[in-house]
């Protein structure tokens, strides 16, 4: 009990608002795999967890879920920032470009291709034979002069090439649902593109009122996170996103 009191005294002293007992709430889902945003450094494909960290890609087996086992590490000669897994491919965003690894043999990711560009901060998300990459300039993102959305053709996965670059303001994360591409534009909110022609994204909407750095599309909701909180939207009408709720901090 004394220890408990000491702990509480300490917490209040340093200004944290906390109770000493855990919260209410029923059980969390005990099956299924969750979903991260495009700026994640962790991704799960099947029974394997892939983690990018600075200049490495590490693979862990989740065969025994509570005791993951390290399986392999791949060195990537770059500053790695994001990972996105789809089917048997990993799409890795780095400061110098996009890397694609094949995980047909899940324990050992195999390098298959890359697309290099000027240095920038850049998550990547695949879409069929295409991939979308945001490039963001500014301090902390090296010396990229441009802010843009790159459309890449990855039909030949060993040789991705640029189809076009669309000028952006300050693009961060991105996400796709159906034929809609959502791009987080920091202080300029969220831009919505129709990608029914994947080579020619057509801007159809722009929600400006919030700061957004990443998006997740989940169960018909657009979940956007930014400096002020997490905002959820109904995007049934992509030209006019409907705010469902905001968790502000």
């Amino acid at each position, binding site marked *: 009990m004394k220890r408990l009191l*000491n*702990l509480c*005294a*300490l917490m209040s*002293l340093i200004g*944290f*608002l*906390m109770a000493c007992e*855990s*919260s*209410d*709430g*029923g*059980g*969390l*889902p*005990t*099956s*299924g*795999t*969750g*979903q*991260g*945003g495009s*700026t*994640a*450094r*962790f991704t*799960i494909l099947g029974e394997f*967890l892939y*983690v990018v*960290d*600075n200049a*490495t890609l590490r693979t*862990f087996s*989740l065969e025994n*879920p*509570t*005791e*993951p086992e*390290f399986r392999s*590490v791949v060195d990537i000669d770059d500053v790695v920032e994001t990972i996105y897994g789809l089917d048997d491919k990993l799409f890795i965003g780095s400061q110098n470009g996009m890397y694609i690894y094949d995980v047909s043999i899940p324990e050992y990711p195999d390098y298959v291709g890359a697309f290099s560009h000027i240095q920038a*901060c850049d998550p990547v998300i695949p879409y069929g034979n295409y991939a979308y990459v945001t490039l963001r300039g*500014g*301090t*902390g*993102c090296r010396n990229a002069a441009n802010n843009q959305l790159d459309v890449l053709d990855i039909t030949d996965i060993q040789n991705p090439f640029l189809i076009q670059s669309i000028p952006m303001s300050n693009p961060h994360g991105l996400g796709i649902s159906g034929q809609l591409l959502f791009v987080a534009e920091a202080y300029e909110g969220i831009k919505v593109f129709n990608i029914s022609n994947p080579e020619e994204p057509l801007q159809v909407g722009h929600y400006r009122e919030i700061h957004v750095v*990443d998006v*997740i599309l*989940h169960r018909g*909701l657009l979940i956007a*996170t*930014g*400096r002020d909180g*997490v905002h*959820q939207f109904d995007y049934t009408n992509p030209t006019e996103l409907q705010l*469902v*709720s905001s*968790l502000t*901090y």
Partner: protein
Amino acid sequence: MKRIYFLFVAASLGLSACFTDPVPVFPVEEVQGFKPVYAEETDIEVKLMSPQAMRYPGKIYVLEDYLFINDLNYGVHVYDNSNPYLPRKLGFIQIIGNQDIAIRNGVMYADYLENLIAIDLRSYPEISVTERILNDREGVSNYPPNSEGGYFECVDPSRGTVIGWVRATLYQPNCYR
């Protein structure tokens, strides 16, 4: 008692730093920035706590009707999002140094200081760390995670190992990036 002791050490070090260190380079009295978190002065236990105020929002993760929102280097806020019009805060999982998570079959994988850990959530609100794998990467940077630049409290090696960074109001900071 040990924790209290550390607090006093921390407080006295902090005060002495304020009084004795002039700021010749950056004439800033009070400014928002980052300060380092030292392992020796912090409760680093992984545990479920009651809902907490957000400090510095990080990445989000979704699993069915639940939202997990990272609080940079502190842990993960858990929300029940079954009614998206009214998400409900369930609790906060303290994971010092955390930035990323992934969840599969009721087990959360998270970066925690120098480690990858597995947290069994299947009996939530009872949670337990079931595995801990030491990373071979370098430790937490001696520079704050502010990609846009700004002031920060210089690292004082005598206070121990830096395990993360938190936003704070700084008084006469000596460092800037």
